[in-house]
């Protein structure tokens, strides 16, 4: 995928470009807001990483400008302003995701892939089935072949979220945001502990399609429960 990176700090910009390169993405670098607007006009990008505080114009104004021109390119706002209020401001002005500095490279790559593919994402209401693994929303039960297991609310939501993002890396903080809707960072391994309960239940059913990416997050593999 091709991403536009808008970042004025050369060290951080280089880190992002190198990191996304390792994940197999192409990148273009813009150091100012006006440069970014120019580059977005010139050629299409799959997503934009936009620093909020730029030397010329504010990142929020860049999104505003781009959106008013009818460009719906997914934008991930990267900012040193990390409060809930700053985050809400960023999302309200039209950013698709908001990541506070300092960030983890895998986190950035996972979130960029998620927003870049958002337009092809499966809708919330669709049937939750991956291979022969099925999730029943009315009874909160997971079924695989003839076996079925009851899941608690958290295990159900976790599995549902992973199934909607099959074959994509989902990070812990993405799960905390979408499954738990927490805006704070817990100090214990909430995601890991709940994930381990879910995987134990799935193993008992006979198929655990979830793969742990060490230090990064989880991927539900569609080919595991055929």
């Amino acid at each position, binding site marked *: 995928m091709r991403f536009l990176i808008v970042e004025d700090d050369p060290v951080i910009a280089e880190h992002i470009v190198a990191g996304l390169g390792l994940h197999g993405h192409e990148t273009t670098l813009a150091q100012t807001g006006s440069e970014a607007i120019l580059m977005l006009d010139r050629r299409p990008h799959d997503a934009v990483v936009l620093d909020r505080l730029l030397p010329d114009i504010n990142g929020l104004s860049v999104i505003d400008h781009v959106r008013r021109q009818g460009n719906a390119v997914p934008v991930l706002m990267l900012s040193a302003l990390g409060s809930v209020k700053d985050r809400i401001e960023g999302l309200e002005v039209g950013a698709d995701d908001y990541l506070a500095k300092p960030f983890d490279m895998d986190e950035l790559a996972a979130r960029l892939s998620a927003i870049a593919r958002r337009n092809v994402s499966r809708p919330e209401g669709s049937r939750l089935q991956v291979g022969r693994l099925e999730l029943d929303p009315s009874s909160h039960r997971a079924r695989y072949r003839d076996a079925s297991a009851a899941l608690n609310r958290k295990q159900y939501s976790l599995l549902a979220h992973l199934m909607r993002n099959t074959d994509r890396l989902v990070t812990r903080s993405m799960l905390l945001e979408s499954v738990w809707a927490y805006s704070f960072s817990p100090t214990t391994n909430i995601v890991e502990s709940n994930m*381990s309960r879910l995987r134990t239940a799935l193993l008992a059913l006979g198929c655990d399609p979830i793969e742990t990416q060490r230090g990064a997050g989880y991927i539900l593999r569609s080919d595991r429960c055929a």
Partner: protein
Amino acid sequence: MRLIPRALSRSPRVGRLAIQFGMAFAIAMLAVGMIGFSAADSWVSSRIDASLRYHTAKYLQPVDGHGADDAAVAAKILDWQRRKVLSERTYVLFGRDGTRIAGRLDIGPLPPGFSDVRFLGGGRNYQEGRALATRLPSGSLLVIVQHSEAAASLHALLPGVVLAISLVALVMGVSATFLFARLTANRLAETQSTADAIAAGDLSRRIPTDRLDGMFAVQADSLNRMIDRMEELVRTQRLFSSNLAHDLRTPLTRLRGMLARGAVDGDPALSGTFERAERECASIIAIFDALLRLAEIETGRHPSAMGTLSLRPLIEDVADTMDPVIADRGGTLEVGRLDDVAITGDSDLINQLLINLLENVATHTPVGTRARLSLERDADGAVITIRDDGPGLAAADLVRVTRPFERGAIASAARGSGLGLAIAQAIVRFHHGRIDLADAAPGLEVRVRIPANDSPGPLADAGAAAA
């Protein structure tokens, strides 16, 4: 720890002030009445004295260049007696030896000059009068006595008039004070509601000055200037923390990038060190985030979605979430009684409150500790209790641990920002509740009380009384 209900009683205390003011007004009016009365009295007296002098001069008028002699004066008196039957003036002439030569008034000789006399008027009642005694060249004494009905009735009126003036002044004074206090209270009402809003964290409010005048407008302007200044200071401080956030986060981002690259590209022997350094970097960020979060909640800057919040499903959700976390650390989480209670709250903050408290159990208690989470409804509202059978806290620590960066002695080896309980406390305070830590012997009991929003608790009552 305890929320003190704002504004216990706000009814203007005019009662005692009105009576004091009314009394002062009455005393002032009494003084004015007495001054007025004595002025009138002395005016009447001076008129009487002038009249006495005039008539004395008239009687003693020289005839043919000679001073008036006894016979002439006595003749004038007799003549006057014949002409006047009723008069407020009476004339008496005494000889050298004090015997009465002419005149009918039954009094003895008086010393020369003005004096007050009592005499038997009409043969029955004693009357008071003013007398002027004048020595004639012959040695005789002419005394003119004037009995003033006006002066007497003025004296008789005195007590009644003074009493009436005082009563009217008292009533007027008290009502004027009540009216004044009422007007003052009305004018101060907007100032008060603005001050309450500011106390609640809304620094954008100003006292409307368009309906105020005089000292109220001056006071409102000066208060508004104070709020301007406060808002400016808060803005500066906010800007400072945003700048601090930016200035710290940017080098931390660079540092994290370098460490990550070092872990990948560097010497394989050092990769463990790089990873540990990266973890330390992450914990610096975590403390920093927690501190900013605490500041946001405490200053009311957290963008909260306050609404009706049913606690039972929220607690069930948190219990589901934390059960595996506590189990993975060798403890157990039980869910006790769960009543249905709704509060006015922010679900994100209440989630953080419960997660923080349960993470405390998970992090600071030994393997095998059992914790119990329950939600009860009492007369005041919701009571959330988290009780464990761990080692608990020393009595001195019970108070200390809710302060930022403080920990119990046993927990000091454990990792954490040291802000968990301080954040919990800030969240509870934000919801007008209270948090109490108690020795559960053995273990620790944390009790969170938050007013329910479906029935008026004591806090709501206080609020209604203040409104």
